[in-house]
């Protein structure tokens, strides 16, 4: 197992290189450039050129990439083009809120979705099942901006019981309860999306398990339905569920682009949008690389979890 993980970690290096090259190309191919953001009517062409030169934007792409890579190797993420603040400082400010929002949303989503999906499978084709699958399809079909704006309209504008966005009240120290109040709406939006997806997988995976012969064996042994579910059902149904979890994990650091925008949540997702708008290459590259690392680590975690759950899966 240790050997396997080390091997996987070593594979990271070439993979991250490829990703960085791809991302660097795409980011630089996008129309517009960072200097456009600084341009004001009273700037001369020489001044614009001088800024470009200072940012290294006039170098050939290969040189720019080489510079970026050598900096990254030294642990230097560079400076933001637009704010001149070190990228690492910006990220460290933004990662906290995203981690908080995404991890709470995922925990809430799974705590609801996995039991509901299993229940729905256990009572397949019953009213409970129809309600759960109905909710799940509604969750999948509702775009997050629509749900988010709808919730803001109802709870913030009409009922005035919850804030429209942000992480806390400005100017006053509202404490923990205030933070919690700010979390409610974005968590509902994100959790409903994660949950809707997870319910479908949990349900179908559990239904599949219920049709297996070993469930019939367990019934013939005289086990009660709950014992069958607990001892023979859940563990076997976990593999597809783990796959979905693995796909969700990177979002914990990657953030949620739309939802963070709607609720003015100062996380990685909204940072990404603003840095795309200002063509802030160093920030964009940093976010891309962090997401890439998160995906790779999530993949390893998923593989380890597979092996823990299913004795047939062995590392070699």
């Amino acid at each position, binding site marked *: 197992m240790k050997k396997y993980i080390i091997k996987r970690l070593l594979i990271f290096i070439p993979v991250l290189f490829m990703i960085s090259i791809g991302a660097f190309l795409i980011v630089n191919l996008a129309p517009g450039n960072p200097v456009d953001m600084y341009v004001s009517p009273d700037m001369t062409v020489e001044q614009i050129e001088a800024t470009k030169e200072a940012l290294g934007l006039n170098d050939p792409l290969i040189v720019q990439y080489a510079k970026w890579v050598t900096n990254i190797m030294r642990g230097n993420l560079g400076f933001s083009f637009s704010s001149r603040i070190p990228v690492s400082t910006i990220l460290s400010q933004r990662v906290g809120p995203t981690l908080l929002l995404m991890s709470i949303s995922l925990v809430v989503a799974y705590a609801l979705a996995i039991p509901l999906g299993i229940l729905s499978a256990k009572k397949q*084709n019953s009213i409970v099942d129809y309600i759960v699958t109905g909710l799940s399809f509604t969750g999948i079909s509702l775009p997050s901006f629509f749900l988010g704006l709808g919730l803001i309209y109802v709870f913030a504008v009409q009922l005035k019981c919850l804030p429209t966005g942000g992480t806390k009240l400005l100017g006053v120290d509202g404490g923990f309860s205030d933070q919690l109040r700010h979390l409610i709406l974005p968590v509902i939006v994100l959790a409903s999306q994660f949950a809707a997806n997870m319910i479908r997988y949990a349900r179908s995976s559990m239904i599949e398990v219920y049709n*297996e*012969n*070993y469930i*019939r*064996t*367990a*019934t*013939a*042994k*005289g*086990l*009660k339905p709950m*014992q069958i579910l607990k*001892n*023979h059902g859940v*563990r*076997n149904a976990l593999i597809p569920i783990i796959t979905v979890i693995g796909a969700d994990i990177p979002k914990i650091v990657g953030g949620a682009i739309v939802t963070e925008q709607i609720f003015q949540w100062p996380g990685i997702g909204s940072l990404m949008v603003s840095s795309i708008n200002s063509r802030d290459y160093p920030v964009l590259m940093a976010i891309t690389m962090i997401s890439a690392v998160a995906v790779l680590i999530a993949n390893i975690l998923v593989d380890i979890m597979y092996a823990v*759950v*299913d*004795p*047939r899966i062995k590392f070699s």
Partner: protein
Amino acid sequence: MEESKILEVKDLAISFKTFEGEVNAVRGVTFDLHKGETLAIVGESGSGKSVSTKAINRILPKKNTFIKSGEIIFEDKDLLKISEKEMQGIRGKDIAMIFQDPMTSLNPTMKIGKQIAESIIIHQHENKGNAIKRAVELLDMVGIKNPEKGSNLYPHQFSGGMRQRVMIAMALACHPKIIIADEPTTALDVTIQAQILDLMNELKDKLNTSILFITHDLGVVAQMADRVAVMYAGKIIEIGTVDEIFYNPQHPYTWGLLASIPSADLEEHNLYNINGSPPNLLYVPKGDPFAPRNEYALEIDFEEEPEMFKVSDTHYAATWLLHPDAPKVTPPIEVVRRREKFLNLKMREVI
């Protein structure tokens, strides 16, 4: 014999609701199982043998299965009427099952020992340690070498034959009064099949369990059974002791089955076969469902289903040929030979 009856199935009729309509899978099945005996139920796929035995343990899918009539009497209780909770106390404890496919009938993510121990824990209220100890003993009894180690392995580390041994150990765990074995050797190759059958015979003699043995393999029947019930289109069409069925069969369908067993002395004639295929039980035909395939069919076979005619105290068959007014017919040559062999055997016994 009366008092040693352990299970009575009376006029059991089961149908499945499908999109096409109602499939009459079992259309009135009656049989008894005696203490310590092996009753084999033989028949083609779809003849209802598996369905009628699954009904005993009530493990048919609930949603689309309808028990239309019948009683299944076990220890003065009708298993079709008792609560699901009561049934859970009988399954695995009094009536255990061995299934056809050992490759998929064991939970892939649970250790062998634990899977066997499970029913000991629920039915005999043993603690986990003792139950696992019992599981190891059982594994030893069914011939798993190094049972201690085996109990700590997962099913995928076992071969098919070994897994079926595990299934048998699991079935025996609580000393059941009845074991229902649903084609337990169909998925195994022939040498392993012989080993498993030997094991079952040996354990049956040791533990005096009754076995309901479902199979479509007449060779297996000869090796295992005390009595045989032949099923066709959801009904038992002939039932008798193994000698009566093999050497003095009465029903043309049984003739067909026996005549189509290939034998080493098959010389001048070709292998017999029963033409056609079984009826679709969505539309049960009028008269005897076997009539269209029956070269000995009488006119009445197409009009009315025959009742069970008594041949001896233990031997009954549902064919109009046994009616006193029926014409005498000569069964296939193979069956005639069998009858002669049987008579010779009997005469030798007398001498």
